[in-house]
């Protein structure tokens, strides 16, 4: 599986807005580049990042070739309850990567 990084605070106060930062290893081949021989290199990118919080979807991003290689996506969510955040990246050619992070809400 591709290398991914997920940064979620280990602990937060109930109701606090927390920042979540994610990074995924992927070349994000745009589909607009050509080889030395002039042939088009087909597009191969991550298309979606979905984050769920104890099963409920809290964030979804649709990525396009204009996202830089090794995509960084940061967003926020309200710390509602202790539990697990699950992250799933999916993309072209069956690309799939997952990561989870636990959070304690006090």
């Amino acid at each position, binding site marked *: 599986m591709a290398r991914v990084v997920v940064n979620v605070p280990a602990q937060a106060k109930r109701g606090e807005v927390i920042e979540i930062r994610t990074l995924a290893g992927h070349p994000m081949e745009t589909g607009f580049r050509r080889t030395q021989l002039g042939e088009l290199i087909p597009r191969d990118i991550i298309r979606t990042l979905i984050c769920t919080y104890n099963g409920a979807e809290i964030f979804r991003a649709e990525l396009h070739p204009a996202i*830089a290689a090794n995509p960084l996506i940061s967003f926020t969510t309200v710390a509602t309850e202790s539990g697990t955040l699950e992250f799933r990246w999916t993309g072209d050619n069956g690309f799939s990567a997952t990561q989870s992070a636990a959070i304690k809400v006090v």
Partner: protein
Amino acid sequence: MISRRTFLLLGVAASAAHAQLPPNIQEIRKKALDEAIRKVVGNAQVRQGKVKLDIPPLIDNGNAVPLAVEVESPMTEADHVKAIHIFTERNPQPYVVTAHLGPRAGRARIATRARIGDTGTVMAIAQMSDGSFWSDSVRVIVTLSACLEEGLI
């Protein structure tokens, strides 16, 4: 008088054969940008305001441009940002990213690193829960490396 479709196909064929862009590339890209925005916004008016697009006006390298978008919104069930759409004017295609938010976000703020191919405008459009659209745009200058090595390792 050739049809627009034929003209575009000729342009694509020329691109494939010689890797050159058709002479009216700016017009084609502007049309693609307008259409992409229209797909999101429909006939609604897009107003300037509430949205802050944070992107360096002078870009070291267009391959990775850090940007952030923040939208003023209470992010309650009744009044929140449903989605943030980012577009750019001078790339081969206009879409950058669409982030779907909601009241659980707490704050309407996203950050990423984009590819900006050429000097031009980057635009962020916020889609609100009440059906309104707000936007911010920044004109950026992209510099190219002095010595390009075409992927030499």
